[in-house]
């Protein structure tokens, strides 16, 4: 286990390096710079700006300095808002996105798993088809369609929840619901498939034959293996939740990291976009490692090597 963790952590380095290098050179290859739109600034001022951001140095120097700084999570000041460090922006807004994403992921597991189990136990009945039809619909409705519809009905129609912003518990409801619906549906599908696989196995028959009550067989024996596909989906799901939260943050005007990414993309704020991308990539890798460790804890047949 220990060697596995060490090896995985060591693999982070080349992976992050490749990503950092790719983004760095993509940025340098890009036609036009972030200052290009401000055409009427004097040449001297432009040179001053370039110097301030180190763009006057040879490419090799820029690259090695960039790598060194990135190691310390220091991406320099934002191109668009020079008074703010990218690191500062990330640390300010990430907790908001984290809270949004964590609630959404938690909700999708807490609702999706029971629905999937229910459908698996009632396999090929109307209830099963109904639940799975709904789940497929849930997977298919994009969150940026669902969000406005929820606002229209639950906020503008009957004022139950505020339509925007991130203040107080009630304001959490619509964004979290918008973000989690697709994952509730997907996790329900995964759980159903996983449980069906397990329920046909010999050791389940043995458990029933021993005279164990159904409750024990299902929750103690079947669920532990049947839920494995869901566990391995948590990594990709987290990546998708992050992506989804970009949209949800922009629908509900939530001051999270996703909004900064989109704004940065519009403003061609290179340092900000690169900082956010690298930060999220590192965050996801750590998360995936934790998921893998949890996986072996649930399924001893898997050996970490």
């Amino acid at each position, binding site marked *: 286990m220990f060697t596995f963790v060490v090896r995985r952590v060591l693999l982070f380095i080349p992976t992050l390096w490749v990503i950092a290098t790719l*983004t760095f050179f993509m940025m340098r290859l*890009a036609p036009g710079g972030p200052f290009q739109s401000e055409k009427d600034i004097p040449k001297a001022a432009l040179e001053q700006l370039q110097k301030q951001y180190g763009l006057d140095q040879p490419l090799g120097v820029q690259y090695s300095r960039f790598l060194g700084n990135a190691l310390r999570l220091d991406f320099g000041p934002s191109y668009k808002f020079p008074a703010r460090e990218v690191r500062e922006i990330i640390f300010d807004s990430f907790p908001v996105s984290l809270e949004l994403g964590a609630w959404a992921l938690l909700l999708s597991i807490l609702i999706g798993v029971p629905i999937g189990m229910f459908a698996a136990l009632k396999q090929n009945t109307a209830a099963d088809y109904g639940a799975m039809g709904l789940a497929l619909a849930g997977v298919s*409705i994009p969150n940026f369609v669902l*969000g406005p*519809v929820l*606002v*229209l009905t639950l906020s503008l129609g009957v004022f139950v929840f505020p339509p925007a912003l991130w203040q107080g518990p009630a304001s959490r409801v619509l964004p979290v619901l918008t973000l989690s619906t697709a994952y509730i549906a997907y996790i329900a599908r995964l759980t159903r498939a996983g449980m069906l696989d397990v329920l046909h196995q010999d050791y389940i028959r043995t458990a029933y034959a021993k005279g164990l009550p159904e409750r024990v067989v299902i929750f103690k024996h079947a669920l532990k293996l049947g839920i494995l596909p869901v566990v391995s989906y948590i990594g990709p799901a987290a990546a998708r939740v992050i992506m989804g939260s970009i949209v949800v943050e922009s629908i509900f005007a939530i001051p999270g990291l996703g909004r900064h990414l989109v704004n940065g993309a519009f403003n061609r704020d290179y340092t900000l976009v690169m900082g956010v*991308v690298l930060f999220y*990539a590192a965050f*996801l890798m750590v998360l995936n490692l934790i998921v893998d460790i949890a996986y072996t804890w649930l399924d001893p047949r898997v050996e970490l090597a």
Partner: protein
Amino acid sequence: MSAAAALDPVVREAPERPSGLWSDAWRRLRRNRAAVVAAVILLVLSALAVFSPWIPGLQDPTAQDLALGATAPSAAHWFGTDELGRDTFVRTIYGGRISLLVGLIGTLVSLLIGVSYGAVSGYMGGKIDEAMMRFVDILYSLPYIFLVILLLVFFSRSLVMLFIALGLVQWLTMARIVRGQVLSLKNQPFVEAARALGARNRSIIFRHIVPNTLGPVIVYTTLTVPAVILQEAFLSFLGLGVQPPNASWGTLVSDGAKLLALFPWLVIFPGIALSVTLLCFNFLGDGLRDALDPHDRQDVS
């Protein structure tokens, strides 16, 4: 020599064998009512998208009627009109043209890259395979949408760039699927026979192995189209995708969402069109998987 002669018919007959599989799959698919309905809806939508420029009354999505302004759905304008008096029904159909086109081309790009990459990686094996798959792993660990955003930020936000960016990030899973298939196929007798007959690597991969991976590839392609459409809509919703005067379902929803409280139909109809299309592709993909994958079939029965 006689061994080669004995093996030769195997090679010749290889294309014959799958026909049994295909007709079987076709029969199973036709029995899946949800998949058939989904396929019919998709055909109708595609036909509307393709032929709309020749259908009277559907010819101009940009026709404005400023005096009319935004009106709720009525007999004259089924889906209502927007603040410039443009007909939402016509706009939705033309949005579908762009969305479906992006879905199709993005998928083709990913198909081309994914199948070639996966087939070469699996067939070569060893260090090459390992290096190629390691690269895929690395790209996997980067949320693909970031790659698209980076490409669109650093380069232009043109439609062509969008096709490339979406195709570039969608091929990873395809490459893995094809590689897995190739690994299990490459030691089969018909491949050995082809090699014994002196076929080169390239022709073995693309003439003998790739055609045998078609089943899973078709299933995954059906699921890639809605994924690409969804991502295009996602980017367009953020304003990073299709740029005016072109409009896709994503841009229509995005524009409508800004006027949600006043003219909800501007969000609802394009939103329904997009969701129904995605749902139909998912149903069809599920149906194709059940029809083509014998493993799942055993589980169900």
